[in-house]
Every structure is written in C-alpha cells, then in structure tokens.
C-alpha cells in the first residue's frame, strides 16, 4: 500500500484543485441554486470533459495506463472542497466501474469511450427506501421472451434528474433481502415507462425518484450475469463509498479551513475568538480526526488500485469515518461562526447541508460500522 501520489497523480491533483477553485467555486453552486438549475451544470460538465476528468480510470486502449481510483479520488476531493455538483462520481466512477467489472465486450466498447469523453452520463438506480440497503431490492425484472420487463420504484437517485442512462438494480429471483437474484440493467432514461420525478434536495444538488412501469429492455441490457448482479454491485458500491469519502474529505478540509480563518479574525471581548482554549481544543480535535481520516481514504483508494483483498473493510472504514468527520466539522463550522453561521449569505450552512446528503449516500456511518464488525467476525 502506498500513501504517496505518483508524479502524474500529483499533476492531476493540482489541475483538479485549481479547476475547482477557479471554475466551480462555492459561488457557482449558489448561482445554480438561485437560478433553479437544481444542480444541473452543462457548462461545467463540458469543461470537466475537456480536462479528461471523466476518463481518469479509463485507459485509452483496453489494458492501457490510467490514473486509477487514487487519481479519481483527487478529482472528487477537489470538487468536494467547493461542493460542486458534477456527474463525476455517478458517471466516471460508478458507471465506469460497473462496466469495467461486469460489462460485456460490446458494452465496454460502446460506453467507456463515451464516458471518458464526457458524452454519456449515468445514474445508479438502487435504493427503494429512505435508507441504504443494497440487497433490499423489490423492483422486479421479469423475462418476457425477448427480454425483460421492469416494474418498481427507486428513491432519491443522485443525478437521475439529468442522466441519459440508468443502471437499474432489479430482482430476477428470490425476495427482497436475498443476495442471489439481483441483476443490473442498463436502461435509457427516456425509455417508455420510465418516469423521473426531480427532487429539490437540501444541498441544491438535486436527485430524482424513478418509477419503472412495464419498462421493456433487451437481454443485452444486462450488466454482469443474470441473478448474480451482487457480484458486480458490491465492489462497485465499495468504490462508490470510497469515492464519496474522498469528496467528503475535500468538503471537511475546506469547512475546517474556513473555520480556522474565522477563529483567527473574529474578535470578542477584545480577543481573537481563536485564542479561547475551549475553541482551540475543539479545533485541535477536529484536526486530529481530519488527519486520521485522510489516511483511511488514501489507504482505501490505493487498495482498490492494487487489488488488495481488504477493499471492503477499508471502504467501510473510510466511509464511516468520513461521515463522522463531515458531521462534526460542518456542525462546528456553523457553531464557531456564531450568528453568521446561521445566515444564508455565509457558506457554513451549505457545507452542513451537503454533509448530511454525503453521509446518507452509499451507507451511513452506522451501516458501515455494522459491516466492519461483520467482516471482523463479531
């Protein structure tokens, strides 16, 4: 395992950080929110595509070099710093990984270049209840002779309000809760019977409920093997959790820096408030949590690239700790800013709102703690 970036990854990181700072600062999110764009930003998406950020884990030639998940983690961390809504996690990480791990040669040849070029966007339609529960799938896919007919309802699907394609997790066998019997389907978002209900979420990134009513897809729409979708889904969700955690690290870092700046500039009782020991100690504890969590995320990203057997354990470690970190740092950011932190004009509230969404996606801290314990056998 390595905690160090290669020279190429270092350059990618610098580019991503500069891009987030200059092209998609927090004010961009405010503009999108205030104009009612609901997190849809075609202009930024185009620029991200030009920089190659959608192809970070996709080699030019099959089997060729790429930046790896470590590289993509740098891009996600950068966009987390400024809370930018982009399709990178859903499309460049989740869809690309699903296709790489489970896609047929035809699917890969058709979709991976389009993803890398920023010409295709995806959304993973997974959850059916308000809590992450990847095996609790009731959406049915029934064989109809020529293909499958899908019926069901997916809740709070990130990016589904603007993606061109959906990756739908459906049940072809068994009952909700069974690991066996899940199948992944590639479904065009404009297919007959798909209805998308856009949601206006607290973080202004948006999402959608997706209803599938007698949606017909051919057999070639299956990603991976029939009934064995979990074999693809689980490693994809581990990577999603790690990628989400990398984004959260960026958000926590930025919120913490903002808090430190405020502690070092705001005066009360004739003193900088940062000179009060009760605030200093809370800042020092946050810093310790940040540094510990940074190591976990770095280890998890590189474990994927190195094909280590403990990816699931490290994914749960990274996501659980990142969830606790953004929760703590965003709350303290609001509190330490005092009344200013309660105003819409100031940024702390934006970080807190986004934090709660980040915490819920791909498994909350308690979901991942439970899995960490199960993996450790107790």
């Amino acid at each position: 395992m390595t905690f160090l970036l290669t020279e190429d990854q270092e350059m990618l990181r610098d580019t991503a950080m500069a891009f987030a700072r200059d092209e998609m600062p927090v004010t961009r999110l405010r503009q999108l929110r205030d104009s009612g764009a609901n997190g849809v930003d075609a202009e930024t998406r185009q620029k991200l595509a030009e920089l190659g950020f959608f192809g970070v884990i996709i080699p030019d030639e099959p089997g060729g070099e790429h930046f790896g998940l470590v590289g993509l983690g740098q891009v996600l961390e950068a966009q987390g710093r400024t809370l930018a809504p982009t399709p990178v996690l859903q499309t460049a990480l989740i869809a690309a990984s699903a296709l790489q791990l489970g896609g047929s040669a035809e699917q890969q040849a058709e979709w991976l270049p389009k993803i890398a070029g920023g010409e295709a966007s995806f959304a993973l339609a997974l959850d059916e209840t308000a809590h992450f529960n990847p095996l609790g799938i009731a959406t049915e896919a029934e064989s109809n002779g020529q293909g499958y007919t899908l019926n069901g309802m997916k809740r709070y699907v990130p990016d589904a309000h603007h993606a061109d394609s959906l990756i739908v997790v459906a049940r072809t066998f068994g009952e909700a809760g069974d690991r066996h019997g899940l199948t992944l389907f590639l479904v065009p978002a404009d297919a007959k019977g798909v209805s998308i209900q856009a949601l206006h979420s607290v973080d202004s990134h948006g999402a959608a409920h997706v209803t599938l009513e007698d949606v017909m897809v051919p057999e070639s729409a299956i990603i991976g093997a029939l009934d064995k979708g979990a074999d693809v889904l689980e490693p994809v969700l581990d990577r999603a959790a790690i990628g989400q955690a990398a984004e959260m690290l960026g958000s926590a870092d930025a919120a913490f820096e903002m808090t430190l700046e405020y502690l070092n500039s705001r005066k009360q009782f004739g003193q900088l408030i940062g000179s009060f020991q009760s605030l200093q100690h809370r800042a020092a504890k946050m810093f310790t949590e940040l540094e510990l969590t940074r190591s976990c995320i770095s280890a998890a990203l590189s474990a994927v690239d190195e094909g280590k057997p403990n990816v699931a354990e490290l994914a749960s470690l990274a996501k659980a700790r990142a969830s606790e970190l953004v929760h703590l740092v965003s709350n303290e950011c609001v509190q330490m800013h005092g009344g200013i932190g309660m105003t819409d004009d100031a940024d702390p509230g934006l970080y807190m709102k986004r934090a709660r969404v980040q915490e819920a996606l791909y498994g909350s801290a308690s979901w991942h703690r439970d899995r960490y314990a199960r993996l450790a056998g107790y």
Partner: protein
Amino acid sequence: MAYDESVDLEQFRAQTREWLEENCPPSMRTPMKDDEIVWGGKREKFKNPEAKLWLERMGEKGWTSPEWPAKYGGGGLSRAQNRVLQEELRRIKARPALFSFGLWMFGPALLEFGNEEQKLRFIPDIVKGKTRWCQGYSEPGAGSDLADLQTRCEDKGDHYLINGQKVWTSYADKADWIFCLVRTDTSVKHEGISFILFDMESPGVEARPILLISGESPFCETFFTDVKVPKDQLVGEVNGGWQIAKRLLQFERSSISAGGFGGTGGSGILGPEEYAKMHIGTDSEGRLIDGDLRGRITDHKMYAKAFNLTVQRQAEQAKAGQQVGHTASILKYGAAKMNQDRHELLVEALGTEGLGWEGEGFDPSAKKVTRQWLRSKGNSIEGGTSEINLNVISKRVLGLKDHK
C-alpha cells in the same frame, strides 16, 4: 562503474542474516515475556541468561542503536541498511535486546546538543546498556507548566550544587544516572533552565517509589539535597536547557506513539470483541447481542486502524522527504485516547470477570486487563497531558493565537 547500493544491501543482508543466525540465542526468538524485558544498567539482573548474551552481542555491534555514529559505539548504518537489519530481526522474530530511555530519548538529544567529550563519555554505555538513565523533569509544582520548575542549581566555582525535588521520575529507583532540568536563573522562566547530568549514587540523592492505583510503582519521588555535580556535566549553554528539554520531549512523544504505551497488547490479552463474544454472546448470525457495545467496539477499532494507517502514512512521507511537521502531538494525543478507550472496552466486555485484583477465581489475563486499565489512565497525563497536546496542536500546527 556506477555505485550500486542495492548490491551492497543484498550483501549486507546476507551477512546480517548469517550473523543473526549465529548470535541470536533461541529463547530470544520467542515472544517477549513481561518479566524478561531488559532495561540494562548496573542493577540489571537478567532473569534469562540468554538475554544478557543477546544484549552483549547486539551492543558490541552497536545494533541497539543502528544509525548512531560508530565512533560513539553506534552501528554506523545507513538508513537503508538499518531497514534491512530491522527486516531481518523481524524475520526471526527477535526480541528487542534493550529497552532504554537512553536509546529513545536522552541519546538522540545528547547527540544533537552535547559536546564531543560528553558524547564519547556517555553514548557508548547507552548503546551497550551499561548505564540506565532516568528523566528528571516534572516537579510537584511543575507538571503541565514544566518550565515553572524550581530545583535549584548553583554555581559554586568548581562544581554545581543542586537542591530540590522531582516527581514522576520513571524508574528512578533502578536508574544509574539522571538527565535533569534545573533552574540556574530565578529571575526569568524559560531562559533560566539548564540541562544537567549526574550519577544517582551521588551523596544527597534519594528516590522513593510511588504506589499507583494499578498497584505498581513505575514512578518515584526524587529528592536532591546538596548534590555536588562536576561542571563538565552540564549539556549545552548555562540557561539554554529549555531548547534541549523541548526537543527531548518530541523524542519522548514520538517513542510513546510509535511504540504504544507500556502494557498494550500484552501477552495473552484478547481484543474487546473476543471477550464480549465470550461473556455476552452472539446471535444466530454471529453478531454480538449487545448492539450498543458492538457499535462502540467498532468505533474504537476503526479509530485504532485509522491511527495505525496515519503512523504508516507519516513514515512513508518522512521517508520520501516530505514535511510531516508537528505530528508528534497529534499521535501522542491519539495514542492516549486509543489506549484508554481500548481498556475501558476490555473491562466492560469482561463484566465482573474484569474486576479482579489478586488471588484465585479470576482468569489471569483478565486480572492483567484490570491492572492495565488502571495504568492506562496515566496515558493522557504522562509525557504532556492531552490538554497540553491540544494546546500544542492549536498553536503550533493550526496557528491559533495566544490569549492576551
């Protein structure tokens, strides 16, 4: 021909392996027993005679301190060679030949601040484990505010005269020499402190062990009454000791966080989840029945994993020449929290089995847990309290300002 270090390293590995094969006694390749740890010094009893042999052989090579210069008795190895040595030692599961404050704290500081004569005089006996050192820092009135220390050191022309009292002096009753902070100027605070060395057998030195809540006495109260010290035993400048003191504290904090606290993971002690399975039980899917305890154990295990990954990350960054900055305090703070949480969970998971003190009727490993749990309460006090470490992080790392 270009110099190829890897060829040399492979040769060094082969030689090292051969040497260890011949010189590391069989019992020194078995897990360390608590009562066979060697601290060296004149009063070392060597419960296991092979431990004596092992120390002599390692000391002769200078391999108790592999990277220290050979002219002071150190191993004179490069960093790369030392890595090879450590790998080979781990390969045969060799015990450390010597535990020593001299190796971990005083030696590194003396190499940095001592004069040539002092280094030649003191370092070789640290390497060979012939002198056991103790640390004279805290005083009854100077704990967290260490610089407020009052032990007086007066210049009497041809010698210094020391009067005062130290406390929490680890193993002062077993040490041969002390490195000690003393006051040479009473009109200023930090700028009036000097760093001095003397023999614990000097007339006027008395060490009294302090009985702790854990039933052990690793620390002493140490009294100095008209102790005469030769003038060449003062390190650095008169009144320049605070700089040395701080540097030495960094060595101390990093040795605590790297090596863990005394007693962690001691022989025969299981993880909290194992005791919980044993004494509380699991459901049909193998999960602990007490879901709340299960969650808290997991929280702790995640913290411990994150801590260990951070130690690895910093080691890698340091090796690559990257700035790791003031990380010692982060790790010291984290190590204390981790060890205390672990022991609270161990005692909780053991239930009444974890409440034994002595005698029959309790699992022996559980009795050890009870003692270690009590001992762990000192982790957030010794070597700089957690509160002081948080002060250091906020001021030196985060740049927060002092209260006016």
